[in-house]
């Protein structure tokens, strides 16, 4: 310790209660509050909200004497809340993250003990504080409408609950979009995406609330008994977006050699467990067939999206990941699926596809009798095989590019481009050769959308052998790749054990010397 941090003999500064309380809070939250108090935007927004609310309340009260109830006022208040919590709060989080990234402040943050998770979490907490503040500004209005007997308590609580969940998810999305901008090439895309996404969501929701559709929907929901499935689905969805945003933000903020992949891969496998559990717990038996088929099909698409990122990573384990490989040899197999690297990524997708196939084989006999379920099941199967083909190509393509982060980004742009070309080129060819697009032919086989549409119906029996053959072929082609992926992991495990044994021997030798 130096002169700087030795205990200062000067009389200890007296800790204010705020200072003591703030010790328990996330530093980001503390700072944002201090900044908000000093800044101008936040007090202005709160003041404007207050003015709007009071006006609405006064208007409603004056109308009440004419016999109108407080319903209109409530939804007007709700429509005021929507832009605040869906646009202003997330945009604030986005802006503050952008400021940090632009000035290189984020590097100063990352050098501290704050983890990227804590940074994101601090921003989410800040959003929640703002949310509570805006709601308390709205509280007099809500109380007025309640007293005017326009709305009942469940509607008020449910609406606020929805608003909070949406606010959290939108903020998480906004912060992770801002974090992507740490890669300069993605800055424009991120800004556009966030402004468009939040803007559209806000206008859509305001329209939804003001047109009275929301009132009808929530009334119907409260009466129907579907409240629990709907609310739980919404909460799960928001949780999904939040966790995914956290993983994405983290992957852009941590040191380049940290493990960014395992979180995503575990999430890929865990999320379906929650989804199926939700179905078993929250959905009535008579809807299981549709819900099961729809969810399982959705999971095939999600798997391909995750796969596109997994097969475009750098190949090898970074020094850090290698040094932190699991110590137990028994963990070699799961580690081979879950640790970073594009070879392991392809293997991970394959394992996921097989797992989904098994789940489907268990579920379809029970719930797959309806025509729609059958079609969805077949489509899902084809999506999985197409995924295997495209991801194998993607992995190969990635191998042609430079082995750095830029290479990953380029490959992630090239893979969708490849899909686009595979769809468009045969069509252009048809147009050039015969002046019109004829029906499906073999040239369109790499167009998943059209091919799936062609074969899930009556021609399904013709597709099955081809699907099996392709799947087996891709599987066999993958074996040497998977072998290499496994060998790298086992080598890392062996090296770690050797180091540990070496350390133990050295320690024993030191003890013996004493």
């Amino acid at each position: 310790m130096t002169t700087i941090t030795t205990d200062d003999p000067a009389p200890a500064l007296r800790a204010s209660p705020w200072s003591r309380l703030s010790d328990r809070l996330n530093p980001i939250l503390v700072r944002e509050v201090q900044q908000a108090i000093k800044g101008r935007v936040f007090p202005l927004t709160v003041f404007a909200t207050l003015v709007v609310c009071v006006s609405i309340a006064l208007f409603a009260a004056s109308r009440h004497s004419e016999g109108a109830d407080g319903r209109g006022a409530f939804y007007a208040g709700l429509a005021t809340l929507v832009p605040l919590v869906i646009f202003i709060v997330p945009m604030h989080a986005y802006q503050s993250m952008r400021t940090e990234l632009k000035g290189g402040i984020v590097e100063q943050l990352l050098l501290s003990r704050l983890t990227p998770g804590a940074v994101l979490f601090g921003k989410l907490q800040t959003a929640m504080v703002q949310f509570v503040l805006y709601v308390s500004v709205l509280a007099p209005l809500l109380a007025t409408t309640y007293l005017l007997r326009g709305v009942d308590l469940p509607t008020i609580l449910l609406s606020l609950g929805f608003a909070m969940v949406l606010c959290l998810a939108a903020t998480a999305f906004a912060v992770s979009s801002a974090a992507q901008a740490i890669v300069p090439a993605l800055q424009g895309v991120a800004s556009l995406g966030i402004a468009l996404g939040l803007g559209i969501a806000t206008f859509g929701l305001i329209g939804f609330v003001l047109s009275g559709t929301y009132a009808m929907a929530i009334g119907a929901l409260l009466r129907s008994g579907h409240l629990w499935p709907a609310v739980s689905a919404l909460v799960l969805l928001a949780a999904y977006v939040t966790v995914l945003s956290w993983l994405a933000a983290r992957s852009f903020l941590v040191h380049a050699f940290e493990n960014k992949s395992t979180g995503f891969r575990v999430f890929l496998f865990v999320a379906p467990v929650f989804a199926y559990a939700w179905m078993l717990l929250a959905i009535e038996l008579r809807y299981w067939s549709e819900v099961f088929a729809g969810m399982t099909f959705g999971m095939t698409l999600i798997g391909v999206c995750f796969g596109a990122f997994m097969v475009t990573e750098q190949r090898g384990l970074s020094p850090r990941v290698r040094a932190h490989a699991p110590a137990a040899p028994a963990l070699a197999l799961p580690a081979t699926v879950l640790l970073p690297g594009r070879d392991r990524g392809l293997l991970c997708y394959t394992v996921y596809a097989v797992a989904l196939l098994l789940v489907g084989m268990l579920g379809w006999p029970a719930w797959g009798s309806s025509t729609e379920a059958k079609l969805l099941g077949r489509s899902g199967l084809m999506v999985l095989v197409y995924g295997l083909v495209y991801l194998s190509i993607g992995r190969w393509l990635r191998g042609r590019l430079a082995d750095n982060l830029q290479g990953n980004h380029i490959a992630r742009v090239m893979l969708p481009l490849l899909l686009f070309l595979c769809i468009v080129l045969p069509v252009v060819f048809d147009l050039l050769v015969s002046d019109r697009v004829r029906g499906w032919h073999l040239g369109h086989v790499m167009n998943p959308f059209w091919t799936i549409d062609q074969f899930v119906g009556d021609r399904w029996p013709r597709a099955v052998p081809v699907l099996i053959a392709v799947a087996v072929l891709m599987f066999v082609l993958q074996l040497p790749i998977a072998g290499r992926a496994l060998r790298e992991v086992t080598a890392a495990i062996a090296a770690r054990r050797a180091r540990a044994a070496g350390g133990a021997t050295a320690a024993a030798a030191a003890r013996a010397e004493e």
Partner: protein
Amino acid sequence: MSGSLLEVQNLDRSYGKVHAVRDLSFTMQRGQITGFVGPNGAGKTTTMRIAATLDVPDGGDVRIDGVSVLVEPRLARLKIGYMADQFHPYPNLDVLQYLDFFARAYGLRGDRRRRTVRSVAEFCGLVEFADRPATGLSKGMGQRLHLAKTLLHDPQLLILDEPAAGLDPRARIEFRALLKELAAAGKGVLISSHILPELGEMCDSVVVIERGQRIVAGTIAEIQRHQELEQAVVARTIGDAAPLQRFLLTQPHVGEVAIDGARLRFAFGGDDEALAGLLAAVVQQGLPIVEFARAEADLEDIFLKTTKGRLQ
């Protein structure tokens, strides 16, 4: 702990075709101030950013107190204080609030946090500016705040990228004293700067790089000996210096003689005895001499002699 505080091992880093750092190695001990010099674009910032875990090399490694920045970046981060060549504070925060925030971010809590913030602010001379907005500081005050932030978590190794740029002369002298105090407390300081006389004054050793490669490293005296730089002698007479110049040129061991106003500077290849003889001869000649001394070891000379001024 034994071993070096900082070990740069065969570091390589390219940006496309630009080979910013190539096969760079050097070490640094505790309690030392090491100057890191080189022309613009030599790769100083790149090396420092890699050592600070903010960039990754294509090859090689950096160990801080034995911890590899590639294998244990999180552990390494706690051992270093990195002061980047640019400083961007948060808007709408006071100087003290700014320091307080980073103290929290470094996990300091309660009284310890308050005491640390206060003593660091005092150490860096920021107390008077405690409630100024952090964005409204002058360049020099900003540098002090930046340094204060860097010191909060009591790092073992300070990596300072051109910290003295923009400081006024008094602030620079104070800054130098601060660094010496830190080194005396056992910390290592790796500092890059283009202000060589000053760096030479405070550094125990220097590393000179050019186009990403190490040119020389060691203490200034060692490098001088190794580079066989001729020792310079400075002399001053009353009135016209030309007679002294003419006389010196007739004497043994004397190289080039340059006149700079009333002063003369000449290269001298002989030892101390020869130098004493020379002085006696000058006095005997009746030349009105008032100053006669070997010039201090000079980092600028080393820099100019070893680097070739090739930029990249």
